[in-house]
């Protein structure tokens, strides 16, 4: 093999790996990009059931109902609210009035069935999406 042919082998090999990688990235992106919607957007956009997305807001006071391991509660951006059900142990920082983000999908009745509930790390933490949607609703009183 001449020097040129060898170089071509490496270039073609590299391109092949890159092509595979691009293919993997595109397929993975198609299925796994998860959008965030505020409760208002959930009401206005009419998101079809069985599509995974994230919703977040403040947990409405007195909305939490628990039976065994399943919990049902509402989150709000103060304009609209969405009812969420979750099966499992909630994070230690889950509280009424706390900002949370849930990952899951709507069922046929417009109830959001969460597969994961995130309430992170400390009492001052506000998920950025929740902060933004509260700002959009005009009620954010944070220092940012």
């Amino acid at each position, binding site marked *: 093999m001449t020097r040129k042919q060898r170089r071509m082998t490496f270039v073609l090999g590299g391109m092949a790996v890159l092509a595979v990688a691009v293919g993997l990235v595109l397929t993975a992106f198609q299925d796994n990009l998860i*959008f965030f919607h505020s409760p208002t957007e959930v009401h206005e956009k009419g998101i079809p059931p069985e599509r995974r997305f994230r919703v977040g807001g403040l947990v409405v006071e007195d909305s939490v109902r628990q039976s065994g*391991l399943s919990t049902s509660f509402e989150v709000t951006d103060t304009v609209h609210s969405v009812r969420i059900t979750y099966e499992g*142990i909630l994070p230690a920082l889950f509280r009424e009035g706390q900002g949370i983000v849930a990952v899951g999908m709507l069922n046929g009745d417009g109830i959001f069935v969460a597969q994961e509930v995130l309430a992170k790390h400390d009492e001052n933490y506000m998920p950025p999406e929740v902060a933004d949607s509260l700002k959009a609703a005009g009620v954010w009183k944070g220092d940012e």
Partner: protein
Amino acid sequence: MSAEIGQFALVLALCVAVVQATLPQIGAARGNVAWMALAKPAAVMQFALVAISFAALTEAYLVSDFSVLNVAQNSHSAKPLLYKISGVWGNHEGSLLLWILILTLFGAAVALFGDNLPPGLSARVLAVQALIGIGFLLFVLLTSNPFARLDPAPLDGNGLNPLLQDPGLAIHPPFLYLGYVGLSVTFSFAVAALIEGRIDPAWARWVRPWTLAAWAFLTAGIALGSYWAYYELGWGGWWFWDPVENASFMPWLAATALLHSAIVVEKRDALKSWTILLAIVAFSLSLLGTFLVRSGVLNSVHAFATDPTRGVFILGFLLLVIGGSLTLYAVRAPALKPGGLFAPISREGGLILNNLLLSTACATVLLGTLYPLFLDALTGQKVSVGPPYFNGTFIPLMVPLVAAVAIGPMLAWKRGDLAGALGRLKAAAVLTAIAVGLAWWLLADGPILALLGVALVVWLGVGALVEFAGRLKLGRISAADSWRRAVNLPRAVYGMTLAHLGVAAMVLGITVSETWQTEVQQIVRPGDRVAVSDYEFTFEGAENLPGPNYMSLVGTFTVTRGGEPVTVLQPETRSYPNPPMQTTEAAIRTTLGGDLYAVIGEPDGNGGYAVRLYDKPLVGWIWLGSLMMMLGGFVSLTDRRHRVGAPARARVPADGALAGAGD
């Protein structure tokens, strides 16, 4: 007083860094020996000054001097000693100071141990190192002063985030930083070589130990972080593809590639320009990681502060460093002479495949990590890229890599014999087939990925051992001769074998724990029995106990298997008053065979507690594997070839002599 001393020392360190960054560089360009010689004492001096500054901050934490704002915000007089110390770097300002301390430590180490470096290269490396130092010192002094005073001083501090009050996390940042910042040395060497316009095998020999050390520390840092997530977050998971995790994982991938490509430069004087690029990219990814984590772009336990000026400063610095070094690369790299030739099937070819797959994987992780940020900045749409994306792109790229790791070391330099190498792997192939058959039978129709994982483990594990046995000529010569060969084998070979076996151990842990784990979530009352795989957990009850600076809800489970007592697990939920917060402390019984893992949640008000119980077979092998990789790195580091006389520069440019040999 100590705070003022600390700040003053930092300002002095900045002055020293400015001298170190300029005069030696100019001296090297003009051949002025005296100016070049300035670099070494300056590097040591800079380290000493930063060390004084760091000691001053540590002292403020130890005596709980709450007139220092940083201490008041992040410490508390009731904190145990260990967390008073680790609190120093448990916040934005202090962690940056630690970063600088380690940066200057590496600078001083290059100055002290780099006696065999040519004076010009040494001066340039230290000058570049000082440039990075200037950037970070300015950052601390201008935007993140850890020594700012508070008047009047509060009676007590706010306390450290309880999630960070953990021995594993106390040492996680220093290790991670040793890795991150260790890559700065490689970066400085790369930039210095570009300025000099000369890269040869000797250069690679000087760079390799630093890369190895940085890589080993980074491995340890990431493994510690992952283990912390495993037992502290209480989800039983050990890797979440969280952007913050990715931020440390990307430099690791780049450093792993660099580690391997530097071998080609050292042995064959080829892949030079690529290696330089990797060195630049690896450190750039470290900086990017710092930016992502510290700027508050990503929200997590690591984002200590969301201060836009800081973000802008780091971003500017990032652009300067990456842009500058890549521009230099673009200008100077074409002048590098191409080195030795080799066939696609050869040790070099194998290492190129390694690099190709690692850097591609690194790129897909980068894309997945940054895409949400870009989309948010451009369209305002909020998306998140979840673990399925990363698993879907990363795993397919790693599978061929792990499979190739068994073959690569068996190929000869320049032109390898693939059929011969595969022939030597016959035993591995047979054992792999048997293991897959066994797994198939155990799993009935389990996931293909699990079978693939099992296949890779056996293939790589046996392959690495066969390769090692081949070096000893085990069975082909007398045992005594084999032993002699074993004694004389370079340490680097032991390091490589250990690290590659570590990869196999890790894949084993991942595959088995993900495939065969059992998880039970339910509400239990005292006396309840819960079956988890073939174990039985009996809930004895829960009680409230005081800890040093928290209240703890402790649940007790006795675990039996077939009637025989196995262990007692006592998971806790801790409530900290300063700052008010709860953490879960999983109770874990670790054996080589697997972990039993219990988490207790809140009482449900009717005498029951929500609990999560797991049986995770072989999960510990994930960290055992990382430990083996790290040890492999350190064993390689002790190879005498890295220390003794060898890195003397060839009198004749090596590429001329070797270029012809490849055809």
